[in-house]
């Protein structure tokens, strides 16, 4: 095992004569605490990953009803398929375009709310409530808001004499419509996490900067933004997980269309598995997604890992 390689900081550190852990030789009994959790972790996370990795090298679809080894055929098929590249483009577009503006505005609103004494709870809840609404319900609500003739958005647009938009029904706008709705849904959640992070910032720093004549924007740019770094890292990770697994709203609002213009990776996996019944291709896509997610994890922890683990302890 990787003994002695401190992947994550160890607890305590100082030797401790009375500690329960010193009860060796029953040291191995400590595993008992992990067994139940490990069992389900292996059964529903790591076993599935191994299985789908194996399946991604098998042909298994309606024409070949038993899994049959086929090497990298599934990956080659995807590589040569335009829709796959469109889906990848859409996924990364969705992730980048929705994460950074949401994070930035969430932080700004957290700061503004943190500075208010009156009406705090009102502001928190009015921004936070969309997080609580099930995505399926939010999706239905927004299908209605976006509806071409009866939808409130197009009615407002035409009141101002502007042309109506196709929203979900047009390949130009469908992904934007989904991004706007997802922004509305996630903003309050990130805001709340930032608000928790702001509670750790030393208020005296602001006083000092104020006395030195720094304005509001300058104070936060120089103090708040760097000091909430660890929180931003946490928010970034949560945001990546949330947006890479986007499915519900796509299934209910656009079904990836029109013309795959809003198809993203998890929906594409679903389509291949449960609509085209091509389990081999769906497994290959799962492998690709897992590799992307693991790569992003390594990247994030490699770049900022020390900061998050040490400040969190």
């Amino acid at each position: 095992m990787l003994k002695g390689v401190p992947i994550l900081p160890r607890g305590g550190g100082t030797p401790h004569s009375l500690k329960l852990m010193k009860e060796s030789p029953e040291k191995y009994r400590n595993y008992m605490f992990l067994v139940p959790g490990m069992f389900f972790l292996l059964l529903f996370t790591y076993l599935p990953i191994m299985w789908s990795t194996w399946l991604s090298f098998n042909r298994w679809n309606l024409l070949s009803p038993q899994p049959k080894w086929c090497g990298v055929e599934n990956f080659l098929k995807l590589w040569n398929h335009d829709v796959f590249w469109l889906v990848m483009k859409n996924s990364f577009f969705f992730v980048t375009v929705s994460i950074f503006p949401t994070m930035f505005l969430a932080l700004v609103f957290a700061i503004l709310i943190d500075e208010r004494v009156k009406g705090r709870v009102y502001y928190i809840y009015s921004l936070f409530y969309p997080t609580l609404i099930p995505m399926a319900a939010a999706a239905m609500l927004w299908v209605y808001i976006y509806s071409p003739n009866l939808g409130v958005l197009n009615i407002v647009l035409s009141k101002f004499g502007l042309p109506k938009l196709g929203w979900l029904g047009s390949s130009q706008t469908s992904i934007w419509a989904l991004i706007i709705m997802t922004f509305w849904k996630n903003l309050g959640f990130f805001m709340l996490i930032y608000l928790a992070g702001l509670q750790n910032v030393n208020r005296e720093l602001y006083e000092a900067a104020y006395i030195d004549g720094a304005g509001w924007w300058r104070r936060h740019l120089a103090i708040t933004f760097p000091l909430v770094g660890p929180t931003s890292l946490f928010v970034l990770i949560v945001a990546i997980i949330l947006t890479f697994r986007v499915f519900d709203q796509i299934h209910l609002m656009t079904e990836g269309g029109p013309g795959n213009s809003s198809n993203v990776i998890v929906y594409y996996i679903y389509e291949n598995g449960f609509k085209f019944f091509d389990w081999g291709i769906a497994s290959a896509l799962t492998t690709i997604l897992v590799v992307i997610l693991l790569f992003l994890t390594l990247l994030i922890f490699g770049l900022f890992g020390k900061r998050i683990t040490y400040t969190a302890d």
Partner: protein
Amino acid sequence: MEEKKYETVLKIFILQFAAIAVILPFVWLLSTALKSPGEVFTPTLKLIPDTFMWSNFLEIMDRAPFWLYMLNTIIVCVGILLIQLLLVIPAAYAFARLDFPGKDVIFLLFVIQIMLPLESIIIPNYLITKKLGLLNTRTGLILPFVASGFGTFMLRQTFKQVPNALEDAALIDGAGHLRFIWHVLIPLSRPTIVTFSMISIATHWNDYFWPLIITDMDRVRTLTIGLGMFVQQESGSDWTLLMAATLFVCAPIIAFFLATQKTFIKSFLTSGIKG
């Protein structure tokens, strides 16, 4: 530190603007859910319906078993949370305060799981659940979510902050692992446990993808998937009923959070979610 007058006004204006913009869709939902079908088919924006059609809610109950969906959702959410706590607390305890070979590697397995949500490995999970004969069962809706890397991580951070002196005191008083967890760690970590529980309930109340693929009968369906099926069945014909059903799906979770808002916000702001 004094705020200039115009600064205060500007800040409140921005906050109010954002708050209202975010609330409006929900107001629109409320208003449509209570309208009569005729009022929806006019291109005018009317916020308050002429007559409040409370019967819309009775109507949706006739068309789909929404109370059954709600019961199933409650069973699934509570089931997930209880088993999660049973698994997560001992695991977090072991990672925070015990030592054993391979600790770092095993902890890494739990942390990596945070990045690999069920949705990303849906295909093999479906195949495994099918092999276990759990399709169309509430057990099948519960079990895949019970090992929570996120919860383990959160609680481990909190358990680490409990001073060693308390552990010594408990040990001198003759407490074992379990007593120490039950009488010292859990009470001291209450805010984190409350926060985790609420996040867990909100997350699983909202699950859609998993119930979509493993259920195909009303008997075990949850609210979100029931709503999805209701939409297909009504094929978008009557927006008042669709919005009434949508409201019915959101209402319990929003009511739950409004009832517990003080605990929730306080716990959230003081618990381990600091990055």
